[in-house]
């Protein structure tokens, strides 16, 4: 396979020196004595990738070329940055060069900022795999560790393509102590489901769209006419709306009543207004991002007030098996410790027709 490999050389520098992110703060990070993080993560990754299996395209110097050469992987440099202090624009230009060459996968080292840049070019057409090297890695396209990313690259033939959320963090708000994570898009990302009983069993989960459709068929089959359903966000929940014959809001929350979509892309205020009018309510949510957040990352519309009104017992969690294989546990942050504590420490996740998995829920 043809893999585009790009490193954001300054990713992660802000973390150790308390900057909570490096975007626009490289100089300050250096002044505070930060050393580059990403190159070492990239070295770790490249030392574990079996040479000769894939063909690499890369960007010059610190953006990948030097590291691939050092690790003994032959590569073709298709983009050379014209300055030593690279920026997000350089990442985007490198990815455009990979896309022009028809690469099968973009492998990158960086954080959520880098993920956003790579996704800006690749969209949902080129699969992405991130090696966590930034300050924040909420996006679902990140492997857990460089070793896990290398394993996935080495066994790419066995991997299943899953939908993975790309997240955007408001860095200014974050530095101010407030975590505001929004869902900006759905990328495609390879995942190894090798922990299923045998590779043949995994074929059940090989077709992500089919798996989503099975889940959607089950949810629509059990929907009651007297219940308001708040559904979103992500591609798995959007598939539920699709099963009702309508288009879902991929990155937002829609409301369904009696089989019809009665409101789309609701914000907190819209949700609270609907909750005033309906007594029976269920929310259908799907884990988001690299850690698998059921609530609290990417769906800020489900504010503490909204979650409190819906009630923990009325959340239905859905996810495909391939997606669950990326996260051994799920996370929850209802935005208020008291409300979070009302959720159980495990959660039933609908993963097929009349089929569920029990997953640990950490909050």
């Amino acid at each position, binding site marked *: 396979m043809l893999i585009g490999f790009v490193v954001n050389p300054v990713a992660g520098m802000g973390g150790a020196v308390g900057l909570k992110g490096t975007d626009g703060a490289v100089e300050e990070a250096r002044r505070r004595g930060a050393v580059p993080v990403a190159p070492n993560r990239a070295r770790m990754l490249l030392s574990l990738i079996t040479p000769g299996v894939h063909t690499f395209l890369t960007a010059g110097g610190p953006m990948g070329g030097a590291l691939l050469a050092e690790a003994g992987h032959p590569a073709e440099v298709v983009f050379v940055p014209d300055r030593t202090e690279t920026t997000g624009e350089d990442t985007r230009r490198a990815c455009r060069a990979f896309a022009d060459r028809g690469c099968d996968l973009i492998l990158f080292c960086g954080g959520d900022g880098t993920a956003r840049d790579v996704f800006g070019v690749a969209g949902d057409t080129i699969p992405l795999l991130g090696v966590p090297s930034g300050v924040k890695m909420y996006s679902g396209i990140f492997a857990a560790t460089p070793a896990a990313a290398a394993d996935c690259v080495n066994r790419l033939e066995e991997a299943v393509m899953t939908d993975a959320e790309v997240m955007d963090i408001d860095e200014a708000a974050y530095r101010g102590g407030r975590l505001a994570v929004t869902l900006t898009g759905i990328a495609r990302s390879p995942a190894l489901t090798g*922990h*299923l*009983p*045998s590779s*043949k*069993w995994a*074929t*059940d989960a*090989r*077709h992500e769209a*089919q798996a989503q459709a099975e889940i959607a068929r089950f949810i629509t*089959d*059990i*929907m*009651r006419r007297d219940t308001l359903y708040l559904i979103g966000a992500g591609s798995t929940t959007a598939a539920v709306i699709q099963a009702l014959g309508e288009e879902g809001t991929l990155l937002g929350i829609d409301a369904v009543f009696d089989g019809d979509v009665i409101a789309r892309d609701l914000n907190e205020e819209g949700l609270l207004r609907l909750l005033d009018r309906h007594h029976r309510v269920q929310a259908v949510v799907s884990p988001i991002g690299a850690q698998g957040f059921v609530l609290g990352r990417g769906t800020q519309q489900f504010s503490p007030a909204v979650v409190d009104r819906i009630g923990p017992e009325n959340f*239905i969690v859905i996810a495909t*098996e391939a997606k*669950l294989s990326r996260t051994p546990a799920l996370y929850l942050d209802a935005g208020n410790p008291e409300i979070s504590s009302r959720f159980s420490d495990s959660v*039933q996740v*609908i*993963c*097929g*027709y*009349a*089929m*569920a*998995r*029990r*997953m640990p829920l950490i909050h």
Partner: protein
Amino acid sequence: METKYILDENDLPRQWYNIQADLPVPLSPSYNPQTKEPIGPDDLAPIFASEIIRQEVSTERYIDIPSEVRDILTLWRPSPLYRARRLEKLLKTPAKIFYKYEGVSPPGSHKPNTAVAQAYYNMKDGIERIATETGAGQWGSSLAFATKLFDMECKVYMVRGSYDQKPYRKMMMQCWGADCIASPSPDTNAGRAMLEKDPDTSGSLGMAISEAVEDAASHANTNYSLGSVLNHVCLHQSVIGLEAMEQLKMAGEETPDVVIGCAGGGSNYAGLAFPFIREKMAGRMPDCRFIATEPSACPTLTKGLYAYDFGDMSGYTPIMQMYTLGHGFVPPAIHAGGLRYHGMAPLVSLLHHEGLIDSISYHQNEVFAAAVAFCRSEGIIVAPESAHAIKTVMDVAAECTRTGEEKTIVFNCSGHGHFDLSSYEAYFAGALPDYEYPAELIAASLKNLPKIH
């Protein structure tokens, strides 16, 4: 301190016990899937041997075991009853734990108890070939073994998930001369239709039954054979309980307090429990408790509906009243393949509905933890199906530890797990998902998922 109780070959029961003679209410009739009329012997004649049809509806309390069948059963029967002293010690329980071990049969489980009888009756009717399905492979290998002893041919449709996962099971069938194919297969209309719909499906028992029934109906001189669920299968398995009662007497424990077994289609549990349930219904063991154990992924008795449903996925089998999760339900790919069945033996179902049998379900990781504790104390590496029973035994024994009660527990250890070691490997690797059936959501939806069309 005795560890095992062994009966003499001459003590092998001469008659099976038929619980249909003692039911608190009679079994409801089954219906023809096409005509929707009550099933009569003529409906079953195209695919079952005449004596098997007679046994299926018989209400005689005892039915003679043919001497040819007994001769073969003596290859491994009577099976031993063990006192699990090392497990008791591990659990620090005052409970006395006994288990019947059916893994001593050549195919390694309780299944040949009925396979031999079914092959024999088909041979007597001049049948030359039998088609069947198998989940985990226990039944397929048992019927392969039994048919070979009567010089018959055997075709086994094996659920694809297990076929891929347990290559040694299909090699065993080959050793006994059977033809084993992954189901859904291209050999039948039902299989082709399922492959068309989902070429990558891991299959299910319901699908495989459809294929085997179609094979029997469309091949000359071929009958069908089912390894569980049906009344005659429960009848043939009663040797387990009949022997166990004698062996418990040898141990000085005539009246057990709890009788436990795993339930997929229900026959191994029926085999152990029915003779004891007879005693309970006759007032001789009024306090004895019966518990059938199931996987949370496929909790037919625990969460299913007591309703009329097909025994297979395509709707070829009679419509029976039983606990069911719906014949279209494809259970998740748990390792206890033998428990991946949407329905339950009508006899076990009726007794559960009448309150004589309780049920409980478990996630697969806790079941494997119990299996590992068992093999590290008693030595036997059990089949994942049997491990479900062990989990219940350990829970009941732990309760005895808390209360100080010296209960006598007996369970059926239905088979060994020598062909399930990859499942143990997955467990040790922390790679077993805890599947479960979302029963509450389904119940709240007010929809009865099992529908008869």
